């Protein structure tokens, strides 16, 4: 009896999951479309000013928000990628197995820190430190937010990189060492190239995590709508904009729909990145 019921239940669960995802996408897409009844596409994508509740006429340009998102993401990736990769190399190639058994779960535990806690740590310690180091009047800016979001993405990058490096077959290493290569030469010229697709995928997955991060940027990115001029400019990424403004919008208004359009752009960015990462991971296992 259960031979028939179990596969059926599993199939239902799968279809439900897929349906939910398609439903969310359609809802986002259709809600966004309605924003463009009143907002010109050219203004939305090329305008510098985002001010839906202006004193004069509302403006709907996402360039400053998009730049905020990309600036924070770039800092986060520049911070987390080398750190994650080096950690992964140490864990996979150098650390003794018992040490690795302790270190890897410990690093993965960073993923369990709620992002609001990271945000608080940023407000209390990192922002003042950055303000002091760079002689700024205020440490709430793209750099601070980028570093904290990078920390949040670190376990993803380190862990997937480690899987990629461990996945390189032992024979490559043995062959390299048998030819007289040193351990470092083996890592640099044999293991790393073989694991490159997986490492790229790890960084892409980390990017997916970074771009959607909301709480941290809401707390420490400085929330200013001006175009960022440097790493030390306060920014307001798209996620923070949605979180701040959705509370005051009237359901069904243009403002409300425009926030869904922001959500759709975030979704498409993440989707694209995850798609490429997925492609790379599967190429590796083939």
């Amino acid at each position, binding site marked *: 009896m259960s031979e028939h019921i179990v596969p059926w239940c599993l199939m239902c669960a799968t279809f439900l999951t897929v349906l939910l995802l398609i439903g969310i996408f359609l809802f986002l897409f259709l809600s966004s479309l309605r924003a463009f009844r009143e907002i010109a596409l050219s203004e939305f994508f090329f305008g510098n*000013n985002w*001010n839906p*509740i*202006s*004193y*004069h006429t509302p403006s709907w340009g996402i360039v*400053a928000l998009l730049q905020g998102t990309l600036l924070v993401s770039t800092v986060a990736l520049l911070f987390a990628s080398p750190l994650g990769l080096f950690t992964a190399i140490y864990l996979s190639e150098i650390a003794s197995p018992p040490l690795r058994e302790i270190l890897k779960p410990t690093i993965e535990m960073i993923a369990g820190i709620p992002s609001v806690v990271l945000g608080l740590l940023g407000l209390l310690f990192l922002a*003042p430190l950055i*303000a002091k180091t760079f002689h700024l*009047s*205020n440490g*709430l800016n793209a750099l601070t937010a980028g570093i904290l979001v990078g920390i949040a993405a670190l376990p993803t990058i380190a862990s997937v990189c480690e899987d990629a490096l461990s996945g390189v077959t032992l024979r490559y290493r043995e062959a390299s060492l048998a030819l007289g290569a040193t351990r470092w030469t083996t890592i640099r010229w044999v293991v790393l190239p073989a694991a490159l697709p997986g490492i790229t995928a790890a960084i892409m997955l980390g990017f997916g995590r970074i771009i959607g991060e909301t709480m941290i940027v*809401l*707390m420490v990115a*400085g*929330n*200013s*709508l*001006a*175009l960022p001029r440097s790493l030390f400019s*306060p920014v*307001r990424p798209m996620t923070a904009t949605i979180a*701040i*403004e959705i*509370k*005051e919008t*009237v359901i069904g208004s243009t403002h409300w729909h425009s926030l869904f359009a922001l959500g759709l752009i975030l979704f498409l960015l993440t989707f694209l990145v995850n798609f490429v990462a997925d492609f790379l991971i599967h190429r590796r296992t083939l």
Partner: protein
Amino acid sequence: MSMHSRFALLPLPLLLLAACNSGTSNTTNLTMKGSDTEVQLVSNLAEEFAKRDSSARLSVTGGGSATGIASLLNGEIDIANSSRQMSDAERAQARERGIDLQEFILARDGLSIVLHPTNPVITLSMQQLSDVYSGRATRWKDIGGSDAPIVLYGRQSTSGTFGFFRDTVVKDDYASSMRNMEGSQAIVDAVRADANGIGYVGVGYVKDGQGNVREGITVIPIAQNTDTPVSPLDREAVKRGDYPISRPIYQYLPAVPPRGSLVESFLLFEASGDGQAIVEASGFYAITAEDVQQNAILFAKIR
């Protein structure tokens, strides 16, 4: 860990929830939400009220006046705290939903302009404030200070203070470089740490428990046109409206509360001498004689 014991963890959040939800019978609830300016004041009032009526459960949350008003219109709360009057659009939505809005004046506030103590600027006019916050003036020397950039701190658009300050002082869009802070306390903290900063907060946020200006900030007097500058710390000037950015702060109800209801007794407590003493102790100012008359109209409707 076996497969079974892993799945046993799934209902854990539910069990925790059940453990937290101990007996709540025989109590009446009152939920209030909205203005961040009012959140500390209303919490103080609610705390004192709960001491007198132990069966009452009052909850106060912030989030901004617009958030509170949206929740009121959605029927989620009993009282919306708002540091500005409701807009015509919001009133129209209330009518559409059949909500018989009632306005209660809770206190008087002098919106205070805070600077860093090392800033040589000692007073500003309304025009200068407008220039600064709209981005027409970007350096302190433009308004009589040192040659340093002005760093603007303001609230997020959910805030009633954001709207009130924009509509009464800036009369233009805020400069896009303004940092939108989460709450009034965040503005005070930011200005305390920033020698070039300027911020606006309700007067309750600039005073300590003894009624003195808190350490690390200065509150400057503001002049209407070329008149003598007036300080928001001057109670009578704020209450008379001589301080140019003084305002009543409000609470909105979705209907006239029924006689004997918790809402009615809480409002009566707030309007009482004891309630208004808490208003003053929280750093704000007691309502004026006209406000009392205004509130009396609301109380007269209760039957």
